[in-house]
């Protein structure tokens, strides 16, 4: 940055202001969560102990560290409620991501095949619902899925069912809600790679007598792998921690982990347990998050 040398003060400012903001409001909160996950619940304000008391000097610091324990983690490991909640979240996220890929790929592929003018319109149509509130979109499905809602009306009218089945408070409703809400996150990265795909490769495959499905399998799919990875990560990671969708569409019998954190926190007021559940969740997501960051940084540098 030779020609910005005069602006070295400005340059420092440009880097440091957002850097310090993120350290204070993204990294530091995580350190605090980690600390509280090692604390005990207490009927006090704040509702956990030990609290680091710097006014007590060195004695305060040693007392603080002596008070930390791994009890909350032992609790998570031994209580099937938590274990089942994690398993259910990962299961739902995995199947939902697979469904998103199956639904999203043909849509993204079709958009990439249309003329540039149509592509702009169709991409906008896919993005538009994403701009409206997630809460509203989930609520819209509550309208449709309720017992005397539109879906059952249609099924009854077509005589597909005799008695209207309950959709709400089932895993099916959660899957519908998730696939619906996350579809743009799957379609857009897939479209971005498919749109850049060199069509002449497919023509070459066809000229050499390769059937269409085989050309898709051998050429299109491998070349769009970066879009597939981006879409899968962009969906899978947040779905694991999803709260609104399972809370409104699913039941409370087998909660996903986001609901468990919410209940521990707001219902049981057990902040240390909620923190420990959150720490384990982050650990669970660390691998996909690191892969995602790597991908995102590479994509940013490629641009």
């Amino acid at each position: 940055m030779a020609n910005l040398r005069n602006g070295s003060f400005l340059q420092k400012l440009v880097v440091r202001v957002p850097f310090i903001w993120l350290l204070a409001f993204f990294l530091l909160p995580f350190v605090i969560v980690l600390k509280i996950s090692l604390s005990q619940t207490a009927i006090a304000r704040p509702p956990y102990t030990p609290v680091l008391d710097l006014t007590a000097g060195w004695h305060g610091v040693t007392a603080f560290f002596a008070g930390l324990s791994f009890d909350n983690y032992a609790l998570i490991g031994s209580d099937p409620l938590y274990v089942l909640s994690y398993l259910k979240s990962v299961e739902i996220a995995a199947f939902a991501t697979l469904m998103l890929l199956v639904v999203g790929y043909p849509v993204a592929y079709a958009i990439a095949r249309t003329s540039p003018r149509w592509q702009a319109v169709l991409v906008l149509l896919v993005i538009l619902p994403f701009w409206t509130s997630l809460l509203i979109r989930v609520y819209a499905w509550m309208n449709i899925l309720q017992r005397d809602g539109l879906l059952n009306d249609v099924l009854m009218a077509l005589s597909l069912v005799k008695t209207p089945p309950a959709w709400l408070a089932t895993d099916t409703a959660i899957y519908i809600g998730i696939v619906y809400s996350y579809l743009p996150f799957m379609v857009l990265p897939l479209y971005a790679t498919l749109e850049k795909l060199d069509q002449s490769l497919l023509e070459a495959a066809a000229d050499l007598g390769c059937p269409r499905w085989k050309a898709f399998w051998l050429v299109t799919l491998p070349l769009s792998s970066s879009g597939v990875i981006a879409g899968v990560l962009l969906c899978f990671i947040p779905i694991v921690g999803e709260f609104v969708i399972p809370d409104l569409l699913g039941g409370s019998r087998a909660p996903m982990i986001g609901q468990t954190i919410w209940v521990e926190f707001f219902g049981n007021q057990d902040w240390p347990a909620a923190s420990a559940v959150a720490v384990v969740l982050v650990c669970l997501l660390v691998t996909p998050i690191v892969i995602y960051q790597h991908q995102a940084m590479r994509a940013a540098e490629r641009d």
Partner: protein
Amino acid sequence: MRKVSAFNLVSLAVGIAFLYVPIVVLVIYSFNASRLVAVWGGWSLHWYAVLVNDAALIDAASISIRLALLSASAATVLGTLAALALVRFGRFRGRLLFAAMIYAPLVMPEVITGLSLLLLFVAVAADRGFWTVAVAHTTMAMCFVTVIVQSRLADFDRSLEEAAMDLGASPLKTFFAVTLPLILPAVIAGWMLAFALSLDDLVIASFTTGPGATTLPIRIYSEVRLGVKPEMNAVCSIMIAVVAVAVTTASLFGKLTTARGRPGRVQT
């Protein structure tokens, strides 16, 4: 010339219908005269009239709008600075950590972001309310702004900036006279996205809010938790209309499309 097969057309039709049918159904039902949500009782504006007298709801809406304006603006400034840092200043100390802190919040489950920020506010004994939610929303939204502005910054011709500086413009002047106008569409798109994210957010706001700062999503959530309510159909329809008008207007001016996917990259 690309061929659009019947299969492609069907996928498109089904995909787009899947995205829009629930929203259309919601809007239609908001005009339902019947108290029973599932029974059609003819067209009516009754539920919109009910809203006008719902002081708590209007209060929540005004808080949400002020919150979104403030946090979107702060997030745009911080996010643009972060994008400049990442694209223009190459390798600086802590760049890897910095980049990690930009990309991680994009996928971080909201429950975790909300919980961790709340625990920070409790630890520093901050009074929870409007300002704590504003800080939380700014933090969450700035990373989205960074990613949008970053792709635009990486794109444009650096020699324009160099020319300005060779002609004696200060770095600050170069930024405002050359760089900012060129990245403005992305900055505006970033601001709009930050605004929408803030207006949308339920989870992070629920954790970080305090007495007297009930946002619109928190209010709607507490109403719809136990079932569908006709007034809520009307509120949601109004919000959908506002978003649809805003986004369509913006995209007609080409702002969103240029920021999201770059024109000229389209192959024929």
